């Protein structure tokens, strides 16, 4: 049995009277890719924000390697979680290089940081060409790559991605997902929240399906890809 890296127990989040997430539990093992899929308003992003301490949870607990996770978001980042936020949120008035350096903010070892630059350039060579350019001038796909690179500069144990396919052309999405696989093979666990169910299921080892804040199904991604309900509801194929 592999080690459990991240565990969410019975997470409940309310926005006023509305229950955005009720009693959702999730496990992420070491070296695993797990995706959370679901339609709009299913609570996917809420879960991500709750995990990163951006929204207050009403009930439940998060554990990282067995110990409870802080509720302050900057402490969560320092403990080894790094989120690529929805809509990328890169610092557009700063250069690509500055964006990457900001990602390494919580680290001290300069040599390691320098090595990680090279690692990120090997994943996304285009970033090296654009190093001195302002991030706002990049194309959507390049911005997404920069956002992923920036998150990786924190040298996270777990890379979290919220809708990395948002607003990108299919070919770019495929590219980015391919790199995510490589990142995972190099030892980073990945937790992915996606509307693009097919891509997410093809990439991940296991998946959770959310519907209006509740867990609908969970299982191995390849099984879910064949599941007739999932096919009908999320993959756009009739069974």
């Amino acid at each position, binding site marked *: 049995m592999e080690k459990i890296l991240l565990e969410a127990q019975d997470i409940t989040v309310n926005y006023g009277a509305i229950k955005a997430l009720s009693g959702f539990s999730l496990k992420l093992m070491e070296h695993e890719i797990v995706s959370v899929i679901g339609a709009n308003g299913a609570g996917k992003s809420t879960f991500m924000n709750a995990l990163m301490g951006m929204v207050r949870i009403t009930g439940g607990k998060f554990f990282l390697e067995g110990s409870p996770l802080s509720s302050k*978001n*900057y402490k969560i980042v320092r403990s080894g979680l790094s*989120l690529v936020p929805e809509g990328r*949120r890169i*610092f557009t008035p*700063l250069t690509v290089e500055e964006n990457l*350096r*900001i990602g390494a903010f919580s680290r001290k070892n300069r040599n390691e940081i320098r090595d990680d630059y090279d690692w990120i350039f090997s994943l996304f060579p285009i970033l090296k060409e654009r190093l001195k350019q302002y991030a706002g001038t990049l194309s959507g796909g390049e911005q997404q790559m920069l956002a992923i690179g920036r998150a990786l500069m924190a040298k996270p144990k777990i890379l979290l991605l919220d809708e990395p396919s948002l607003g990108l052309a299919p070919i770019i999405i495929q590219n980015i997902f391919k790199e995510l696989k490589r990142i995972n093979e190099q030892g980073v666990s990945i937790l992915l929240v996606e509307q693009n169910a097919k891509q997410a299921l093809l990439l991940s080892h296991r998946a959770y399906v959310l519907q209006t804040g509740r867990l609908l199904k969970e299982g191995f991604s390849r099984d879910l890809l064949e599941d007739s309900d999932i096919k009908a509801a999320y993959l756009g194929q009739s069974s």
Partner: protein
Amino acid sequence: MKRNIILILIGLALALWPLGGYQEGIIILMCINCVAAMGVSILTGFTGIFTLGHAAYMALGAYTAAILTVRYGISVFPSILAGGFMAILVAWLIGLPTLKLTGDYYAIASLGLCEAIRLILENWQSFTRGSRGFPGIEPYTTRGFAVTIFIFLAIITFNFLESRLGRELKASRDDGVAASLMGFDTHKSKMKALVISAFYCGISGALLGGYMGFIQPSMFDMMKSTELTAVVVFGGLGSLSGTILGSAAITLIMEYFRDISQYRMLIYGLLLVIIMVFRPEGLLGSREIWDLKMGVKK
């Protein structure tokens, strides 16, 4: 490195160029204003927090240095530093509750703070001599001294803005949420910016006292505060060289038009309007002056 050398050369030119007494005074004033403007630039230009109360920190620096040198006979340099640290202390106390405010609300709070400190100085007669002012300050701000401090702080500031801390401030300015996702404690970042900017203003105030030989609370009123922020906006938010240029330009214009002093405010206002119309992003925008030459576009 090249930049530091250029700054030192500018400093040497400012300090050693043979000039008459009046011109020398203008240079001293320019340096004093630039130091305060750099402080406000760190907070407003690079951290994105608008302030309308930084004259209060100048007042604190000026009064601390004046009282320490005149009344307690402490030597000049420690007194000026004490002025800076007094500003830090007060800024920290004030920042704790108010920097949780976002958007324009901090500006309003800072406005109140500025008036409060001025009124305390005005009414604490036994200690500050109130609105009669505080005379007899030793004229310790010579041209060489003012230029040295200005250039020294300018070099530090330019380098600091490219450091880890500088990036931290810029990140929380551009996107607070994303910055906290990078592991920044954004409240703390803002505190750092406020405290540093207060220190600059405190030093600047202490120098002003040493130049004028006399200070009074009305020198540090709301007009002075808005002037500080206006100069930063004039030079371009997020451009330190812009701030310095803007501050120097405004000081020069205000001084050279002293003969027609009744029209001075008119010219000042006109200048601000011209900038707003033709360069709404300020003199240099958010670029530094050497970026212009390279033609870097945002």
